């Protein structure tokens, strides 16, 4: 704790640190946050790119891709027409071993079944572990915790830097996997053994090993981050910043750090066991050697369900923050919000079996998982209604962050409601492993977490980069994304109930799915639109970073402590450690002239505004 104490007391003077120390191996939490953001955005483009290929295959199974595929003339007559035709001609004249990367995965521009399997596996892995986690937890955890609780840096700045660089190592390992012989992991992000435990079942050898190694490293990285977050929040809050004055964002990040700390070791050990099975001939998960494949499912989901809350809780905190700021009203039921998050996180530990209802588990056990899952809907409902209560009677400003936060709330409602269908076991037995699940995942992880991310980036951009994010482009991006998102994912509910399974490379092979061809094409078109719209966002971020309008210290007139720091905050954040006098959401408090009341203001509220503080 000595390091922690040191950071707390001495203002940091680091005016001149070389390039390397400032931008690469920085120990400043704000720089590390930006690094995580960059990592996440780059990976977002990769993960998104993969899924574009995947959607092409689902809409036009076994047709050559546009641009890189062979032409129709070539297919019909064998005459080379385009440059790509000549390229493929040349590739096919070579023995398979010497063919290019692309030719072994997408011969003639047609996605092979094996590569298709890699695509959905890596899309999910990248989006969950390398986009949502680095941005919500890595970037905003780092950026906001010290600033919002009013301290100079994380408790362990060096550990913090290491956490980022270990994540980079993990990212590099996962990228290398795309280039090893045998191809990248192709067992789904859930990697169920024995499929994943023995290379003979998929033909993938090192790809899957690297996948395991990468996630083990990522686990270590997150673990370092969590320890840091927990320590910082417990020990380094500014004077007056009691737990019940913490912004909900910090509450959510605090809970997430605890979840990660407890859940990740389970994943890490399961991955290690899987590696042993693959490389050292053990049989943890191989039935033929006395192991049990279901053991993996239990371990994976014991980690996996808390993990999905890791993905959504920060978005919930951020959403609450932004709704309150732009409704110019205190958050409705602050305490209820905190308790709801705590109970979601607590209940999250006893529901993992709802992913395994059809594995033949004893129905007596199944019903326990069923009831615990149902009960989780209650705190989720509490949160939703409290968000509505926050809007009720507000003075709502439709800024870009607010639009995204509203989208977060409404999309989360759909995702949460579809969760109930799956918690009702007899219905789940029907829709499990169909596109219904895919719709649910995306309503919560895209509709929830990613809209949360957009809200967060657009909201804190001025503080992070000292410039305003272009709001016109922001609105264009928002509306296209919102519309395209719903066009892409809502129809998937219909596919799922129609019996369309997930993880199938070619739906047209199934007679009864042929009726969905049109719908699949529609979904693909919407997905392409959705993908393109993200380029607007990326452009906006990088353009505004350098060319945006200079931002004031508190452009949104918000209460929380980060807005009292200079913009962008210098190393050490505050000239002087602030003292906290109020809760975070005193907007339009009685007896105060302004419509907001910074947590650091010494003014007193006439009557108890929130009814709660």
């Amino acid at each position, binding site marked *: 704790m000595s390091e922690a104490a040191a950071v707390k007391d001495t203002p940091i003077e680091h005016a001149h640190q070389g390039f390397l120390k400032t931008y690469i191996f920085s120990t400043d939490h704000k720089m590390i946050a930006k690094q995580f953001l960059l990592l996440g955005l780059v990976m977002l483009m990769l993960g998104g790119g993969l899924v574009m290929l995947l959607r092409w295959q689902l809409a036009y199974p076994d047709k050559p891709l546009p641009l890189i595929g062979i032409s129709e003339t070539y297919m019909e007559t064998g005459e080379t027409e385009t440059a790509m035709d000549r390229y493929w001609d040349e590739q096919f004249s070579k023995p398979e071993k010497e063919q290019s990367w692309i030719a072994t995965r997408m011969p003639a521009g047609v996605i092979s079944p094996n590569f298709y399997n890699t695509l959905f596996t890596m899309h999910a892995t990248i989006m969950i572990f390398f986009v949502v986690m680095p941005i919500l937890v890595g970037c905003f955890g780092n950026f906001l915790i010290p600033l919002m609780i009013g301290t100079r840096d994380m408790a362990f700045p060096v550990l913090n830097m290491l956490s980022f660089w270990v994540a980079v190592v993990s990212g590099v390992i996962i990228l290398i996997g795309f280039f090893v012989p045998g191809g990248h992991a192709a067992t789904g992000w859930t990697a169920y053994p024995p499929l994943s435990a023995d290379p003979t079942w998929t033909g993938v050898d090192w790809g899957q090993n690297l996948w395991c190694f990468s996630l083990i490293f990522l686990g270590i990285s997150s673990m370092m981050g969590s320890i840091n977050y927990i320590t910082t929040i417990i020990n380094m809050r500014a004077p007056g910043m009691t737990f019940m004055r913490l912004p909900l964002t910090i509450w959510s990040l605090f809970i997430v750090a605890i979840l990660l700390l407890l859940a990740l070791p389970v994943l890490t050990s399961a991955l290690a066991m899987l590696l042993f099975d693959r490389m050292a001939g053990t049989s943890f998960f191989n039935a033929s050697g006395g192991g049990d494949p279901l053991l993996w499912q239990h371990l994976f989901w014991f980690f996996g369900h808390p993990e999905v809350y890791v993905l959504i809780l920060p978005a919930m905190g951020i959403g609450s923050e932004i709704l309150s700021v732009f409704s110019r009203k205190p958050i409705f039921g602050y305490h209820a919000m905190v308790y709801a998050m705590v109970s979601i996180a607590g209940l999250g530990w006893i529901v993992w079996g709802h992913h395994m209802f059809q594995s033949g588990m004893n129905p007596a056990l199944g019903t326990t998982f069923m009831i615990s899952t149902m009960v989780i809907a209650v705190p989720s409902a509490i949160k939703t209604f409290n968000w509505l209560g926050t809007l009720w009677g507000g003075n709502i400003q*439709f800024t870009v962050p607010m639009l995204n936060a509203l989208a977060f709330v409404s999309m989360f409602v759909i995702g949460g409601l579809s969760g109930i269908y799956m918690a009702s076991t007899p219905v789940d037995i029907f829709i499990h492993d169909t596109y219904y699940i895919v719709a649910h995942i995306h309503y919560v992880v895209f509709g929830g977490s990613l809209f949360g991310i957009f809200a967060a980036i657009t909201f804190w951009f001025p503080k992070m980069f000292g410039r305003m994010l272009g709001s016109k482009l922001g609105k264009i991006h928002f509306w296209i994304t919102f519309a395209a998102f719903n066009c892409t994912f809502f129809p998937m509910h219909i596919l799922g109930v129609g019996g369309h399974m997930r993880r199938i490379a070619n739906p047209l092979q199934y007679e009864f799915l*042929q009726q969905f061809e049109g719908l699949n094409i529609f979904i693909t078109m919407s997905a392409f639109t959705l993908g393109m719209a993200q380029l607007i966002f990326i452009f906006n971020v990088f353009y505004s970073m350098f060319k945006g309008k200079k931002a004031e210290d508190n452009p949104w007139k918000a209460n929380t402590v980060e807005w009292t720091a200079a913009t962008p905050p210098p190393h050490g954040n505050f000239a002087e450690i602030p003292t906290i006098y109020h809760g975070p959401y005193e907007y339009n408090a009685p007896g105060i002239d302004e419509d907001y009341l910074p947590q650091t203001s010494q003014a007193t509220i006439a009557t108890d505004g929130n*009814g709660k503080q």
Partner: protein
Amino acid sequence: MNKGFQLFPEQASTLAAQVDYLYFFLIAVSLFFSVLIFFLIYVFAVRYRRKSEQEVPEQIPGLLKLEILWSVIPFLLCMVVFVWGATLYFDTYSPPKDALEYYVVGKQWMWHIQHPTGQREINELHVPTGQPIKLTMATEDVIHSFYIPAFRVKRDVVPGRYTSMWFEATKPGEYHLFCAEYCGTKHSQMRGRVVVMEPADYQNWLSGGVANEPLEVIGEKKFRQLACHTCHVDKPDARGPSLVGVFGEPVRLQNGQTVTVDETYIRESILNPNAKIAAGYRPVMPTFKGQIDEVGLLQITAYIKSLTKE
């Protein structure tokens, strides 16, 4: 099979309609809540849009009554769904006593099916209407999942154990049969069909098919081939316990525990005989791992089940 655009697969089993009722109820509940919530968001967005900077919004303190209201109502609704769902859930796990037992073995990338009367099929399952059917399922390699959308049933097959499911078909016709659990490169090609027939047609089909021996007869042959009978004979001085009439009965183990002889126990006794030793016998039974596949195991199991005391 092409019947125009269908939002749902047909309802072709006794279970299907029941699952769909629960599903419709959920749709009603979630429509109600989505409409309510979206309506409120919309109304608030319009009504409380900021018109001028000076405007002071109403102070609405957090109301305990409201908090309780919107916790208790969702909770009660969830409990209704829970009780309803759980009842149905138990039904899907309790096959009627008179269910006919079929055996299913999944392997990359096909389904192997055996009728109680000995017919074997690949990727096809013929069943009569009005007759509960229980499937006992195993896999040769990885996890698969036996899925018949029109019957609203799905169950994983898991290496190292038997899983089972049951259904009763109601409508003659052809239905799709899939593997729903991702199982490797050609997962999407692991598919087949279920043919549901009137009982009389089914009998015809049975007699018209290739004359197959009943399962337990094939099982008996395997039993002799593998020389099981050298130890397991119904004699007092035999080296192994008699297997006559043991199925479904408790058996005492050397360590004092008692287990019931079921499919999984028989399977384990053959593949890993020393895991559980029957009381009063020496652990001399060799393992037959590698000498017998899942299909063979099911045949021998059927044979042992057929051995009843006269």
